[in-house]
């Protein structure tokens, strides 16, 4: 029992019946830097949120400095000395440094107003103590990301944090700022503060951390001293699962004609330079970690975001300016990542949602919607996709299961007989049975000659359905793996690869 | 499901309570009015005159054993039309109306005629082809002429002559046009007393009046009489006179005479205090009486012999103030 500060035992957590954490055990020692690694969806955020009091666990125990720790809300967690430095900083960019430091803890005057003088003096003291290169009255948003981060760290220390959790802290930092951060972490360590460091930049993990914990599919795989790990072993730990998925075996051919092509697409700094081509009948996967830019790419391809540079070629027609209407005209379809906010009209019926994309095929002579044709078509789609709904006219989609909802999304796009499909996490939040059905749909579309771009964070799924897999990292394609060479480790390596 | 309809039921009962209560109250007096009812459609009760007039109508009606029902349009002519429609639906025996807009009210007059319900206009007249059965108005022209005549008589006795400016209201307003005509009539009749230096159109707009009067005084510094067609214009008059250092009571060396019209609080107060010298007061109570009388006669089936019934008003001067003023409607508001 070498100075264990935080002890976590057997934590389980499920969301809507889907189990996310399966009995997680780990401990954090005083004054150590513990690295936490894992793929997207491994459960890192969920675990941290439980520690931070954002939501409660289903079962299990936590002990902080020997006492039971069951935070009801984040305020309690902060009170017990746990601070979160999020990836997107938890600060108010329109307020000053002083105001940010004292958010939630404003000193009051006798009358109840905010004691600005006292605040300012206290802020100056902290600025001196942490050597922050700022003025108390500086507006936070005007400072570079590195400095903002330092303010956030200072805020945590002001709140007497004993444990600091860093979640992907270096994504917005410059090289120098990163070095400063590491220096700060070293200092904190010396003061006896414990740190949990989450990152997928393995190089940094190896540099900073005393021990490393691997989380995979909601389970802790192993925790060891850093010196006991090699990078290869780490990667193997992150992906080394048994492939248990079932995928349809449908014969299809990849044809010669290229239906969708991206030429040096650039969008803000999320998509830096992406080129690829997809043929009719081909299913091309796109893997990558969070923040790689895949969703942004998909949105640019469909005209939801404007193309900064580059061209999109559909059916041999080249476009440098796109909008969804144009894409639909070219026979393209886009299944978004978040069906709740961008895929379905949640409060409307199944029928209404199915009819969203192209009703002009269902008009009669007067330019009026042909009710009968609409009904016939809807029933056909519902049968075809096996959408489980009793009364499609009146049943609202928000009452359906995730799998059925996603099928409705598919349904509405198949009106158009889409020849180009852009799918962004099409089986997210979908149960196993429905997943299989969705894979069949995708296969059949490809068999019918459509070109499919399949974006996903589940390696297994991609390996089971795609003809080849592209890997995206930091806005670029870092590599491509053809079917015969499919390998989990290789794909993750490409997703983690550092660019030198 | 149960709970939903329960709460709906409660809301529903609460909502309809006023209907039921009122209905029960009115239940007895359903249709075929045994008592005669007069509908009173007024623009608003915004001025003192209207308050007194309306109250007088109600009282007068009571004296005759007649009920009244009042509706206020609050400055909206189309609402007034709608309210009159409803009065007709309630089968009142006659309607007394103070219109917001003399042109917009025509459609209501038509409806009254169609329904066979007599309508009496009060204080504001309607012109054109379609007229109400009776119009009770102040005899604007005669009163305007008389007030200046009275003033002229005193001037002759004192051997004074007056150089005057004449303020004019909005000429599309019948009342303003008639008053102007009356004033001019008196001026022409008494050339040895009056000399007209300027006419100042005001459009019944206080700002326009202010500027116009100011310019006129500057151009004609020898003016010693201002004739106003309404007490409504007192604020700009006072303001301009104060600016020119001529706001003074009778007897002071810098006093300038003013003669006005209406008999409202302001005019009468200034008369009492000595800033105003004569005022032609519209008789709110008399007009009320005349209106009610006409309405009842018409409701009884008599036909009106003449369209206009005049309120000759009262001329109040500094001299006769003690005797005449108490009869004026605004007297009780004076300090």
């Amino acid at each position, binding site marked *: 029992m070498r100075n264990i500060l935080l002890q976590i035992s057997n934590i389980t957590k499920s969301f809507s019946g889907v189990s996310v954490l399966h009995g997680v055990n780990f401990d954090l020692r005083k004054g150590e830097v513990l690295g936490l690694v894992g793929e997207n969806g491994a459960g890192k955020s969920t675990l941290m949120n439980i520690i931070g009091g954002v939501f409660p666990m289903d079962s299990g125990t936590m002990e902080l400095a020997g006492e039971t720790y069951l935070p009801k809300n984040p305020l309690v967690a902060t009170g017990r000395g746990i601070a979160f430095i999020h990836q997107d900083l938890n600060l108010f960019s329109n307020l000053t440094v002083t105001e940010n430091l004292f958010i939630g803890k404003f000193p009051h005057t006798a009358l109840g107003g905010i004691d600005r003088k006292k605040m300012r003096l206290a802020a100056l003291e902290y600025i001196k103590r942490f050597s922050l290169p700022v003025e108390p009255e500086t507006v936070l948003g005007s400072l570079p990301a590195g400095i903002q981060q330092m303010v956030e760290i200072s805020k945590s220390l002001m709140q007497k944090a004993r444990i600091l959790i860093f979640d992907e802290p270096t994504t917005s930092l410059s090289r120098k700022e990163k070095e400063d951060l590491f220096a700060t972490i070293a200092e904190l360590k010396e003061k006896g503060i414990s740190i949990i460091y989450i990152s997928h930049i393995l190089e940094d993990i190896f540099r900073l951390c005393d021990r490393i914990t691997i989380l995979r599919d909601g389970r802790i795989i192993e925790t060891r001293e850093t010196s006991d790990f090699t990078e290869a072993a780490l990667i193997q730990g992150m992906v080394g699962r048994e492939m248990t998925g079932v995928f349809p075996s449908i014969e299809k051919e990849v044809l010669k004609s290229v239906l969708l092509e991206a030429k040096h697409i650039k969008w803000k700094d999320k998509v830096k330079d992406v080129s690829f081509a997809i043929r009719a009948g081909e299913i091309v996967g796109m893997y990558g970690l969070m923040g790689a830019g895949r969703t942004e790419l998909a949105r640019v391809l469909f005209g*939801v975001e404007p193309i900064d540079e580059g061209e999109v070629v559909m059916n041999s027609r080249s476009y440098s300016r796109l909008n969804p209407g144009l*894409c639909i005209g070219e026979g393209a379809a*886009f299944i978004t990542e978040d069906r709740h*906010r*961008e*895929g379905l*009209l*949640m*409060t409307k019926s199944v029928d*209404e949602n199915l*009819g*969203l994309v*192209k*009703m002009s095929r269902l008009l009669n002579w007067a*330019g*009026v*919607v042909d*009710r009968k044709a609409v009904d016939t078509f809807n029933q056909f789609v519902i049968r075809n996709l096996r959408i489980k709904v009793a009364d499609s006219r009146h049943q609202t989609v*928000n009452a359906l299961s995730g799998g059925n909802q996603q099928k409705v999304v598919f349904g*509405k796009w198949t009106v158009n007989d889409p020849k180009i499909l852009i799918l962004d996490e099409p089986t997210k939040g979908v149960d196993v049975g429905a997943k299989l059905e969705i894979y069949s749909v995708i296969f059949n579309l490809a068999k019918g000659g459509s070109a499919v771009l399949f974006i996903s964070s589940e390696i297994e799924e991609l390996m089971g359905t795609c003809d080849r897999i592209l890997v995206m990292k930091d806005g670029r394609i870092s590599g491509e793996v053809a079917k015969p060479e499919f390998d989990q480790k290789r794909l993750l390596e490409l997703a983690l690869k550092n660019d030198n | 499901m149960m709970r*939903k309809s329960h*709460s*709906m039921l409660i*809301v*529903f009962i609460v*909502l309809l309570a*006023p*209907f*039921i209560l*009122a*209905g*029960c109250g*009115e239940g007895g007096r*359903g*249709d075929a009015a045994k008592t005669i009812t007069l509908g009173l459609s007024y623009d608003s009760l915004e001025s003192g005159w209207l308050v007194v007039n309306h109250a007088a109508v109600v009282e007068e009606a009571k004296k005759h054993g007649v009920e009244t*029902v009042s509706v206020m349009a*609050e*400055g*909206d*002519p*189309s609402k007034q*039309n709608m*309210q009159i*429609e*409803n009065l*007709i*639906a309630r*089968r009142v025996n006659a309607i007394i109306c103070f219109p917001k*807009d*003399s*042109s*917009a009210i*025509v*459609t209501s007059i038509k409806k009254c005629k169609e*329904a066979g319900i007599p309508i009496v206009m009060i204080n504001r007249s309607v012109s*054109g082809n379609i007229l109400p059965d009776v119009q009770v108005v102040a005899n604007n022209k005669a009163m305007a002429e008389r007030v200046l005549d009275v003033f002229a008589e005193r001037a002759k006795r004192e051997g004074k002559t007056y150089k005057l400016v004449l303020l004019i209201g*909005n*000429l*599309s307003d019948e009342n303003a046009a008639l008053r102007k005509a009356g004033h001019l009539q008196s001026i022409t009749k008494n050339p040895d007393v009056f000399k007209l230096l300027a006419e100042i159109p005001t*459009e019944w707009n206080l700002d326009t009046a202010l500027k116009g009067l100011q310019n006129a005084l500057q151009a004609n510094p020898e003016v010693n009489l201002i004739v106003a067609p309404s007490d409504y214009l007192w604020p700009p008059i006072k303001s301009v006179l104060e600016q020119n250092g001529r706001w003074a009571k009778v007897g002071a060396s810098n006093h300038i005479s003013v003669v006005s019209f209406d008999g409202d609080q302001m005019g009468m107060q200034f008369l009492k205090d000595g800033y105003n010298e004569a005022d032609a007061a519209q008789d709110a109570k008399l007009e009320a009486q005349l209106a009610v009388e006409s309405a009842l006669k018409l409701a009884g089936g008599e036909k009106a012999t003449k369209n206009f019934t005049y309120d000759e008003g009262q001329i109040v001067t500094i001299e006769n103030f003690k005797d005449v003023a108490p009869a004026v409607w605004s007297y009780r508001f004076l300090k």
Partner: protein
Amino acid sequence: MRLAGDMPILPLFVASFVLAMCFVPHFSTIYNLRNCLLQSADLLIISCGLTFVVLNGGIDFSVTSVLALGSVVGAYIMALSPLAATPAWSIPAALAAMVGIGLLVGLVNGFAVVRLKMPSFVATLATQLIVMGLAVQFASKVSQTSSISGLPEAFFVLGGEGKYFLVPLLVALTVFAVSDWLLSRTIFGRRVYAVGVNPKVAFISGIPVRKTIVWLMVLSGCFAGIACIIATARNQVGMASLGDKLFLTTIASVIVGGTSTSGGSGGVRKTLVGVLFITVLNNALNLLGVGWYTSMIVIGGLIVLPACSSHLLNGRNSRR
């Protein structure tokens, strides 16, 4: 037709109508019922237009100012302009002008919301003030009086004078029927609902969101123009004060009828019931001698009703 579940206001309306018939004196006379219907005509027309905008999650404050400007411009054409001498020309010209003004105002609103990205609340409030100002200025320039009279007799037919009392009703019903048809049977209608629920989803599904919004605003403006015709004909004068206090009643009708202000649910059928309910209520309160301010309190309270009932319903249904 599943009416009752969809429209909690319908039984309320029927009940209040029955109660009024029984307990409110003079309510049940032919004369009064006829008035009631006529009084509801222009309200129905404006409310239909407003329903489109509310379905989109927006609001249009400018509809009542269209009434004001249309009224004075139309009256000017028919009574004071050179055309006034020939009603055969002046009346159609005036009608075109009134609707045209509504259309223009709608276009301006649409442009402001779509291009300038102003929220409809702000944009239409601004147009309301500007158009009102224009109406008052125009009226004072062309006429000494606050109203413009001397309109041709033939025009009054549109206001339901005498034996033509069916005319405004027919116009209102036609507008209603067209609105209902647009909303329930055409692509445009589907788009209106889709954009109202979630504009992002609509956009990704290829719906021309911006064009749809502009059309909505234009429809609202045009309908206001048509209502202006009826209201001006009924009052038989052009007035810059026309429609002054109408907005409260209009939005109350739409909301009480059950169209949700957050967009995407409701429709003109609900608005129709809302209009009838409010008209009956207003009429009954008037007949009972209840003052203007008290009626406003009652109507204001009514707006709370659908919010309450949908809360009660959603308490069961919430599945987010």
